[in-house]
């Protein structure tokens, strides 16, 4: 980003956006999603006042009922007269590049409510469970003035954890078919939950999954392993704890014990409790200072992303670098050169 001046086109867009015109928001999202000229300046301008909205992420395996649950939760928030943004992500086909975005189907009951803005996004090759620019779109919705932004990921497996970079509170939605306690003890998805929800709780196996999740959470909290000596030289309690503190939010130690709730999104059972629990988590985030910490770590990772992207752009759009690359490749082909010597020459020129 060279400057903070907006093109006349984006200036006009910004005016509509600031006037609270829905069309302005919709168009701004398109500009950001397509990384069209000037999108960074646009984001810079609207993000200046800092994050205000409460951001809640919903993630879980395909078919867990995330969309239905988001719709049910959104309905509750509308009763509280909150103004809501919803971002729902579905996968892009790696074959055709197309996508079928079907999350709105579950949200028809709320789709004409003028207090809710829903946007569907395709992942466009991003593998973290969000689309490449979902975080930016959440920022736009925040800046537009929504009280709360709900983010729904694609159906995820165990390692698509990017939702933590977009949300303050992460709700992991599971169903009785999701698997047993061993799945729950594995690394990844299970570590990012601030709140677990077992949806479709009328199905057989739900009570068992709830129980197993609670047990697994106790293990994770270290309470079950604290007094067990290292086994084969590996201290499980310490390993788990270390893993938790790397990127996943440390939870129990700071006074938040991850609750396991049950819901039935279609009959609305348990939805009110979920909304209450999200509020409790919010209160804890604010009181414990955790919110500040999460926002700081998000700001750091976003800044790193922008630098990464710009460095790549600067590097590979330079004629000199392209020339050095070509020469490096020649040297590799004729013997003597390696990718390391080629990279060395390129980095030398860039960092000069």
């Amino acid at each position: 980003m060279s400057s903070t001046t907006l093109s006349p086109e984006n200036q006009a867009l910004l005016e509509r956006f600031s006037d609270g015109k829905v069309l302005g928001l919709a168009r701004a999202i398109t500009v950001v999603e397509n990384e069209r000229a000037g999108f960074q300046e646009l984001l810079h301008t609207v993000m200046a006042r800092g994050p205000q909205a409460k951001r809640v992420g919903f993630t879980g395996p395909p078919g867990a009922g995330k969309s239905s649950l988001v719709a049910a939760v959104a309905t509750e928030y509308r009763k509280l007269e909150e103004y809501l943004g919803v971002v729902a992500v579905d996968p892009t086909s790696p074959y055709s590049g197309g996508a079928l975005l079907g999350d709105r189907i579950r949200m028809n009951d709320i789709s004409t409510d003028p207090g809710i803005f829903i946007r569907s996004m395709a992942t466009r090759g991003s593998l973290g469970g969000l689309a490449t620019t979902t975080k930016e779109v959440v920022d736009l919705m925040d800046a537009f003035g929504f009280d709360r932004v709900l983010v729904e990921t694609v159906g995820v497996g165990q390692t698509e954890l990017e939702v933590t970079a977009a949300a303050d509170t992460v709700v992991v939605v599971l169903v009785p078919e999701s698997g047993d306690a061993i799945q729950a003890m594995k690394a990844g998805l299970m570590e990012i939950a601030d709140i677990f929800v077992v949806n479709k709780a009328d199905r057989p196996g739900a009570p068992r999954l709830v129980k197993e999740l609670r047990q697994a959470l106790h293990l994770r909290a270290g309470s079950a392993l604290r007094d067990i000596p290292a086994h084969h030289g590996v201290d499980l309690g310490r390993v788990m704890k270390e893993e938790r503190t790397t990127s996943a939010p440390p939870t129990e130690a700071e006074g938040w014990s991850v609750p396991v709730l049950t819901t039935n999104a279609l009959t609305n059972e348990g939805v009110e409790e979920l909304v209450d629990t999200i509020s409790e988590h919010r209160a804890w985030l604010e009181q414990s200072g955790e919110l500040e910490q999460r926002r700081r770590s998000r700001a750091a990772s976003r800044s790193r992303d922008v630098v990464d992207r710009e460095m790549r752009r600067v590097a590979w759009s330079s004629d000199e670098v392209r020339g050095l690359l070509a020469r490096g490749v020649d040297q590799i082909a004729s013997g003597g050169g390696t990718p390391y010597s080629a990279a060395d020459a390129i980095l030398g020129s860039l960092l000069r």
Partner: protein
Amino acid sequence: MSDERKIRVLVAKPGLDGHDRGAKVIASAFRDAGFEVVYTGLHQTPEMIVNAAVQEDVDVVAMSVLSGAHMTLFPRVKALLDEAGADHMLLTGGGIIPEEDVEELEKQGIGRLFGPGTSTGDAIAYVNEWFATTHAG
């Protein structure tokens, strides 16, 4: 920055009939053609369709109408789109629509409408062509 711009299409199924096979077929075909397709399911009112089209900032609204109500639904959605400031979107669609009605609707600013037996390739080509001409340069 990516130069390739995805075409976003809302596939909508207005009215009370439950025949959504056609809508699903065209939604899948559009997806396979590389479009980003927003599908909203059955029983959509014109207001729901326009609301979704605006929020999703789609390029094209494609409606499947088999109920015979096309002479009401297409003009109504068109009017609401214009009212919402979304007159740049292409409104097209398909269904059981007599030729003279197709012509009449075209006069009212509605895009091509496809009848039974249309190959999905024709619809895809039409959307691609429309997009290329309106977004040229």
